[in-house]
């Protein structure tokens, strides 16, 4: 499903490329719950941004279903791969419904009107994460754990085969972390989604993941 070949990730400072990690090779399949591990600053978020098309690879390539992600249009990629980032969202009257419905953005018209089918998909995503009773609540009124679930529901509404989560447990307590990971595990086993999740919680990762990608100093990459 996802193949990474001789990938070098980083960013550009003016015209000069700044390499963060290089020589990355891996192959990830549908149904995998992949734990992305490594110390702070090693390049996990840069890898995730590259994987989701927010940064372009410095060299090498990432293919998704046999096609390089740089060849996907933004709209096409949005129907294949969704992301949950660490940054909290809120304000502007954003309700749970609004955020989950945003997952339908790649499929709806320019005026943002949801069809009946779109609404059914949003409701299904809310139900899957037990968020339906909260649908009219403002995002600002939710706990951190509930917010993360809303963002995952947004990814479900986006109907992508790949979901990437950057540090989703950063603001969560012990029980919320376990609940979140059990939801992710369920999505992999029942719906065959490929989920890539970065976290520093090694114990939690070991309990739930079935694949691991560890990034270490000296561009050492361990894929199990």
């Amino acid at each position, binding site marked *: 499903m996802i193949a990474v070949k001789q990938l070098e990730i980083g960013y550009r400072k003016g015209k000069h490329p700044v390499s963060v990690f290089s020589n990355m090779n891996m192959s990830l399949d549908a149904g995998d719950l992949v734990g992305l591990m490594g110390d702070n600053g090693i390049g996990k978020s840069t890898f995730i941004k590259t994987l989701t098309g927010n940064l372009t690879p410095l060299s090498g390539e990432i293919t998704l279903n046999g096609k390089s992600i740089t060849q996907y249009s933004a709209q096409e990629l949005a129907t294949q791969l969704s992301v949950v*980032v660490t*940054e909290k969202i809120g304000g*502007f009257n*954003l309700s749970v419904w609004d955020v989950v419905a*945003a*997952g339908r953005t790649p499929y709806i018209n320019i005026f*943002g009107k949801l069809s009946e089918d779109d609404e059914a998909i949003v409701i299904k995503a809310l139900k899957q994460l037990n968020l339906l009773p909260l649908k009219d609540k403002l995002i600002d009124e939710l706990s951190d754990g509930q917010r993360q679930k809303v963002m995952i529901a947004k990814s479900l509404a986006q109907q992508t085969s790949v979901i990437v989560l950057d540090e989703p447990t950063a603001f969560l307590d012990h029980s919320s972390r376990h609940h979140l990971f059990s939801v992710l595990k369920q999505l992999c086993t029942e719906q065959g989604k490929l989920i890539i999740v970065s976290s520093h919680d090694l114990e939690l990762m070991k309990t739930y993941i079935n694949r691991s990608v560890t990034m270490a100093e000296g561009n050492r990459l361990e894929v199990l």
Partner: protein
Amino acid sequence: MTKQRFIATTIYLMLLIVALITCDLCFGSVNLFSLDRSDPLFQTILYDIRLPKTLTAVVAGSGLALCGLLMQSLFRNPLAGPYVLGVSSGASLFVAVATMLISSVNISGFYFMGKSIVTLFSIGGAFFVTLIILMVSRKNKNNVTLLLVGLMVGQVLGALQGLIEFMSSADNLKTFILWGMGSVGSTTLTDVWFMVPVFFAAVIAGFFLIRSLNAILLNEQYAQNLGVNVNRLRVTIIIITAMLVGVITAFCGPIAFVGISVPIASRLFFKTSHHLHQMVFCLLLGACVVLAADVICQLVSNQLMLPINTVTTIIGSPVVIYLLFKSKLSVG
């Protein structure tokens, strides 16, 4: 927000606009009802003075509110607005430069050329400042920093404008000062036809951005991952804002408060984040606010037109502060 509630609210706001337009046309130093309809004075007052003023109030109010909404959504910052972030100051400075140039080369007799130059300069000034603010916002995501940079840019441009005013003739200085206070009462119907196409083009362009604006409220990374071309969205918003603020400022002067407060009030009153609803409400509410301000100006002083900025700021700012304190909801 349900479809029924959206339609009902839209109808209420439209009725309010009709009522305010009627008041704005009727109130003034001359009582229109005391004149015969066939009286040339009636025709002159209604069609040459009051109608342009009323239409200008609608265009200016709606346009500035739309700009405020677009800027607040793009920067995800409820404090953003054309006046606060210095965009109006950029337009003002460039209008001052254009006025100086026109008076120095003596083309003031050529109405269209003069108006076109002033308008183009005004758009250029607004565009210039919006670009600066956008570059700052990309370097530094902090809302307070963005606001402070906007205020500082506004101060610098204001100082430069002061310098130009200091060097200008007595006639030009008087024009600058009166224009700088903001007014919808100094336009002609020809000026209105200048503004209307730009206004409608901006509104139509704004409606085409609704899906992208809804997505960018999450954040830029999410919006991009949802298929939004964020760079194209930024450029489109800069162009819309610069065109609207430029044109409105060229004809009405820098109008304070409307661009920042109407989107805030709209979010507090109508409790929706969807940009189809917000855009319609901001356009209607913006027109209501400037029309109401103009009516108040007439009521307070029949003989001497008060500057519109005085009313929009004195009445509007406390209302927004009250709404912010009263509401437990976050607006940004």
